[in-house]
């Protein structure tokens, strides 16, 4: 009997699988298909202080082995998330959730975290300083070590729950940013968010996305994720939540060997709504195949 349990910032997970924010809504669409309590946890739709419509459509473009999205953080705002979405999520999911928070100023991050901090079923905060699809915020917090540290310190003041900072791969030195978050008091780092990309339609000869650029996700980005997790693992002591192109149990193990304690599944949920469940059900088989008794023991095993 293999052991899939891992501990992330002091909270034990039945398995390391967490659907990534923005690919799983608030869980209840998926709960129609399967019992989502099989998941390790889930990171809910990126929440901002004010409601956001997001970008104009088209927001989606297909790529070889992946996709671009430029949704632009559409969400009903933190008050509606607390009043409407979290009660619905609570009915179908009984484990601690990960609250994904975005902002356009330090105050917004702080205020959103302060409001969500009252919600008992939130186990961790995942602070997104890496959204490539919004202007005047989002990723700009995640591309300088100083800004990343400032955001971390600011939200640290208003919650005792673990803070995981979600980093952008669209930087020259991911390690310096991860270290800055650690010095700012982060309890964990999650990476990677999407890679900024573009596609052009040959018929119209214009970018497919209304936003022109979008975030590239899917199996094609996995090697970038593995490399960045590997580099960051060497440089920090806090745990890493790895993500980027994960669609199989083998991918989960690869990211864990690189240094991830837990693994998020993103774009795969959109192509196969059962992806996260299928990966969890397949993990024991793949663990046995590679003679892994406990997932906890393989974290960073490639170093």
């Amino acid at each position, binding site marked *: 009997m293999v052991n899939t349990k891992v501990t992330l910032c002091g909270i034990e997970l039945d398995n390391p699988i967490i659907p990534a924010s*923005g*690919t*799983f*809504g608030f869980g209840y*669409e*998926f709960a*129609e*298909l399967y019992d989502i309590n099989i998941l390790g946890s889930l990171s809910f*739709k990126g929440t901002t202080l004010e409601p956001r*419509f*997001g970008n104009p*459509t*088209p*927001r*989606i*473009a*297909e*790529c*070889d*082995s*992946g*996709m671009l*999205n430029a*949704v632009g953080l*559409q969400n009903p705002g933190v008050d509606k998330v607390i009043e409407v979405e979290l009660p619905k999520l609570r009915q179908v999911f009984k484990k601690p959730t990960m609250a994904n928070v975005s902002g356009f100023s330090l105050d917004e991050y702080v205020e959103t975290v302060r409001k969500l901090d009252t919600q008992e079923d939130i186990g961790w905060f995942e602070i997104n300083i890496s959204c490539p699809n919004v202007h005047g915020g989002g990723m700009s917090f995640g591309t300088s070590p100083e800004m990343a540290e400032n955001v971390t310190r600011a939200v640290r003041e208003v919650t005792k729950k673990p803070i995981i900072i979600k980093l952008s791969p669209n930087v020259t030195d991911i390690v310096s940013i991860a270290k800055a978050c650690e010095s700012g008091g982060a309890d964990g780092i999650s990476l990677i968010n999407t890679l900024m990309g573009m596609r052009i339609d040959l018929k119209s000869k214009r970018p*497919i996305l209304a936003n022109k650029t979008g975030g590239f996700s*899917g*199996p094609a980005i996995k090697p970038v994720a593995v490399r960045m997790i590997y580099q960051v693992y060497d440089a920090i002591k806090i745990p890493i939540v790895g993500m980027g192109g994960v669609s199989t149990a083998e991918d989960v193990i690869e990211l864990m060997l690189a240094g991830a304690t837990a693994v998020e599944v993103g774009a795969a*949920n*959109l*192509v*196969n*709504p*059962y992806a996260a469940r299928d990966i969890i059900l397949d993990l024991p088989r793949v663990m046995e195949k590679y003679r892994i008794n406990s997932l906890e023991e393989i974290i960073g095993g490639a170093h």
Partner: protein
Amino acid sequence: MKDTYFTLTENRKIAKGTYLSVLEGDTSDIKASGQFVNIKLDGLYLRRPISVCDVEGDKLTVIYKAVGVGTEKMASTPVGEKWLTLTGLGNGYDLTKSGDRPLLIGGGAGVPPMYYLAKLLVKEGKHPTVILGFGKADEVFFKEEFEALGVKVIVTTVDGSYGIRGFVTDAFDGLDYTYFYTCGPEPMLKAVYDKTVSSGQFSFEERMGCGFGACMGCTCKTKYGNKRICRDGPVLEKEEIIW
């Protein structure tokens, strides 16, 4: 919503650039006309959302235009292949508002969902009139199939090579209808919106990520708030649409 394998039992060209596929499998989650299915094709990352043209027992008929890598791949798939298909997606048309004499307006790739809708309306004893709009005579399809349902059919072509010359709205004169249902390219929908005198329902198209409401890739603004075309649509009511 159900993810299930369908076997392709028929796949043929029915008009210029237009293909009809019959799929056999579990159709039980398709509850309304105007719903769509999302088909996984080998080698392509995202699924292809295709509207339901007809359901009869375990047979699902879809009609699509081969306009990109996905639909071209579908058109060239040999019979006997299996497609993993997410079924029963979207809200579909609401038949309860039709009245006795609903008008159905389909343009091009928007014609197929009108077929299942017409069939269900006839089954309920209604008397639909159907306007089918195409570009040219060689693009016309399904006129006889609609007529076989016992509904009145009017065909328009932009160049006048078949039926009435012009757009679907050029066939409106003298029509008496209780309600309308429409699907087609957005400029056509807007023209229908402007020229219809009753209330009605519109089916919209948008590039989708997932097709079941998770990714927010296809959201539009309506008078009743933000709606995901895939989940809260694709059918919207006339009164809520913001152009």
